[in-house]
C-alpha cells in the first residue's frame, strides 16, 4: 500500500455566514476574504504539516492545483513541492497534478516536473489532471469542448519532451515549437510515474490502461459512493485485456480523522468537517460543468459532475450522516482501520490519498490525527495486497539523496582546487 498525506490547503478564515453571503467558493469568490498577511502563516503551517507527515512514515506527501478557490490556495503546486523537496528526504512528492492544458506551452510542465525530480532525487510522482471546469474553463478561459483535445496534445508533447534525446520539432494544433529540447530532464526513466485524476469517463479509463498510468478518483463524497465508478474502471481494465489487475493501477482520496475514541473524534473534528463540507464545497452550480467540458458519452452514462452537490446540499448532513455514509472516515484507530480496509479492498486501490487536514482544522488537531493514523492504523493496512508488493510501476524510484546543508565550512581564504 502507498499512503500519501494530502493537503488541499483550504483558506481557514471563511466567515460563518459565507454560504448566505456568497454564491461560490470558487471562480468569483470575494477577493476581500483573502488576507495576504494571514496567508503567510497559513502557507507555512500547511507546509510544516506536510513535512511533519513525511517524518511519520507516509509514503508520499501530496499537493494539487486549483485557481481562484477558497479551499485550495495552491494555484502552483510546483512552488509548494519545490519547498518540500528541500526539507524532506525519501518521501515521494505527489503533485496531483498540473492541469497540462493550461500551460502555454506545456513544455513548461515537462521542465518544472524535471526540476522537481532532479532537486528531490527522483521523488516525483506526476499527476496530469484535465482540471475541473471551474479551473480550466471559467478561471483559465479554455474552450470547454476543445479542452480534452488540447490536454491530449499537451500530454503527447510532455512525454516526448521527457523521452526524446535529440531536439525535435512539434507541429501541434495548439503548440507549434521548432526546437523542443528540455534542459534539465527527469532522473526517473523513462519518466516519472504518472497518475491521472478522473471522474468516471470511459475515455480516461482507457487513457490510463493504455499508458500504464494510475487512475485516481479524487472525490469528497467518500468510498461508499465511489463503488460504482471504481467497479466501472476495473471492468474496463478487464475488457481492455490489461496484463494485470494490480491495485496500484488505482488510487482514491478519502477524508480521514483519527482520535482515541469515536466520541473524541466527533468532539475534536466535527466543526472542521462541517466547515469543509458546508463552506468549502459551496460551489455555484453554474460553474460545475461548462457545456462541452464533459463528453456526450460521459453525460449519457448518467454520471453527474462530482461538484454537483448531493440532493439538498451538504449543509443538511450531520457528523453522523457524513461518517455513516462514508464521506468522512473518522473515529478510533480500530474504527478507522476497519473502514479503511473496507475502502481499500472494496475499491481495490493501492494508492490512498489521505485528506487529513480538513477545513479550518488547527495544526495541533491535525498532527494528533495524523500521528494516530501513522502509528496505529497505517501499519495494519500495509500488507493488504502482498501478491502485488513488487509492483513499482506507479511509484517513484529515488536515488541516494544529498542532505540539505551539504556545503563545506565557509572558506576564509582562496580554496585550493581539488586535483
Amino acid at each position, binding site marked *: 500500500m502507498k499512503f500519501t498525506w494530502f493537503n488541499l490547503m483550504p483558506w481557514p478564515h471563511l466567515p460563518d455566514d459565507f454560504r448566505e453571503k456568497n454564491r461560490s467558493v470558487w471562480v468569483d469568490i470575494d477577493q476581500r476574504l483573502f488576507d495576504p498577511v494571514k496567508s503567510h502563516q497559513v502557507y507555512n503551517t500547511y507546509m510544516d504539516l506536510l513535512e511533519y507527515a513525511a517524518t511519520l512514515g507516509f509514503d508520499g506527501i501530496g499537493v494539487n492545483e486549483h485557481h481562484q478557490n477558497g479551499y485550495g490556495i495552491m494555484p502552483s503546486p510546483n512552488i509548494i513541492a519545490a519547498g518540500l523537496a528541500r526539507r524532506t528526504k525519501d518521501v515521494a512528492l505527489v503533485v496531483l497534478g498540473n492541469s497540462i492544458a493550461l500551460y502555454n506551452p506545456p513544455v513548461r510542465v515537462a521542465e518544472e516536473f524535471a526540476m522537481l525530480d532532479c532537486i528531490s532525487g527522483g521523488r516525483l510522482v506526476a499527476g496530469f489532471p484535465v482540471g475541473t471546469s471551474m479551473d480550466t474553463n471559467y478561471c483559465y478561459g479554455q474552450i470547454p469542448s476543445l479542452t480534452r483535445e488540447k490536454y491530449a496534445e499537451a500530454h503527447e508533447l510532455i512525454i516526448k519532451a521527457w523521452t526524446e534525446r535529440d531536439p525535435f520539432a512539434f507541429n501541434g494544433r495548439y503548440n507549434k515549437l521548432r526546437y523542443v529540447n528540455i534542459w534539465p530532464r527527469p532522473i526517473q526513466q523513462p519518466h516519472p510515474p504518472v497518475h491521472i485524476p478522473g471522474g468516471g469517463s470511459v475515455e480516461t479509463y482507457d487513457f490510463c490502461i493504455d499508458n500504464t498510468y494510475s487512475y485516481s478518483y479524487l472525490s469528497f463524497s467518500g468510498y461508499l459512493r465511489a463503488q460504482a465508478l471504481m467497479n466501472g474502471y476495473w471492468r474496463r481494465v478487464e475488457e481492455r485485456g490489461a496484463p494485470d489487475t494490480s491495485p496500484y493501477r488505482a488510487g482514491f482520496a478519502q477524508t480521514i480523522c483519527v482520535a482515541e475514541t469515536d466520541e473524541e473524534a466527533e468532539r475534536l473534528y466535527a466543526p472542521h468537517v462541517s466547515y469543509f463540507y458546508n463552506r468549502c464545497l459551496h460551489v455555484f452550480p453554474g460553474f460545475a460543468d461548462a457545456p462541452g467540458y464533459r463528453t456526450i458519452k460521459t453525460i*449519457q452514462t448518467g454520471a453527474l459532475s462530482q461538484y454537483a452537490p448531493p440532493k439538498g446540499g451538504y449543509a443538511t448532513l450531520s457528523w453522523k450522516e457524513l461518517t455513516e455514509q462514508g464521506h468522512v472516515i473518522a473515529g478510533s484507530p480500530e474504527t478507522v482501520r476497519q473502514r479503511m480496509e473496507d475502502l481499500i479492498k472494496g475499491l481495490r486501490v493501492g494508492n490512498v490519498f489521505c485528506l487529513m487536514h480538513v477545513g479550518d482544522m488547527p495544526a495541533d488537531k491535525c498532527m494528533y490525527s495524523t500521528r494516530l493514523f501513522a502509528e496505529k492504523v497505517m501499519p495494519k493496512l500495509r500488507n493488504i495486497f502482498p501478491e502485488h508488493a513488487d509492483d513499482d510501476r506507479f511509484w517513484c524510484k529515488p536515488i541516494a539523496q544529498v542532505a540539505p546543508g551539504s556545503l563545506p565550512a565557509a572558506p576564509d581564504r582562496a580554496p585550493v582546487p581539488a586535483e
Partner: protein
Amino acid sequence: MLELKTVETQHGNVRYIEGGVGSELVFLHGAGGVTPSDPFLLALARTHHVRAPLLPGYGDSEEAPELRDMLDFTLHTWDVLDALKCSDPILVGHSMGGMIAAEMAAVQPNDVSRLALISAGGLWDDAHPIGDIFAAMPYEMPALLFNDPVAGEAMLTAGRDVEDPNFLQQFLVANARQLGMAGRILFPIPERGLANRLYRIKARTIVIWGDNDRLIPPFYAQAFKKGIKDAQLVSIPEAGHMVILEKPEAVADAVSRLG
C-alpha cells in the same frame, strides 16, 4: 409550412429548415438553436423563401468536431450555402448567427449584398460586458433573454416536462452538444476579432435590436451601426435579446426593408 431537410457538406450532413415563397433569405440561428415552429421563421416565410441551416451539433445536424474556430464556422456556413445552390440571399443572423453572418459578409464582401444583424454577437467592450450564458443556470435564463421574463419562461418551457428525468437527460445532452459547439466561438468571451474586419462589409445592412436586451446590451447595436458603412438601426421597444420571439412580426418587417 416549414420543413426539415438535409444537405450534404464537407463536414457531414447538415439539417436545414425550409419554407415560404419570395426572395431568397438565409437565417442563421443563435446559441439556443431554432425549430420549424419558430414564429420568426414563420413570419419571414410569408414573404420570403426561407432556409435556416442548423449548425453541426444542433438539432440532428451531425457533429463536426473539426470546426474549431471562427474561420472554420464562417467557411462552413459558406459551404452550406453553396451546397444549397443559394447565391446572394438576404443574409439574416440572430445573436451567434449574427456574428457568423457578419463574418461571412466580411470574408466574402462581394457575395453578400443584403445583411440583417439581430442582437448580434462578435464585439466586446469592457465597459459593457455581455452576460455569461455558459455559467447561467436555467432559472436565470428568462431574465437574461426576455423583456418579459415570465412570458419568456413560458416560451422556453412550452411543451416540455421539466420534471421528467428522460427530458432532463436529453436536455443535458442537447445542451452539451449545442453550447459545446457554440463555445468554440463564444467562450469565454464572444469576440474573435470581428471589429477588425467590419470595414470590409459592403452589404446594405440593417441592425435590429431589442431596446431592453440584457444579454447583449443595445450599446452593441450602436457599435455595429458605427462599424458598418451606411448601416441602419431599427430599435424594437419592449423587447429583450429574444426579440425574434417577443416581436417576430416587427423584426420580420424590418428585415423586409432589404427586399
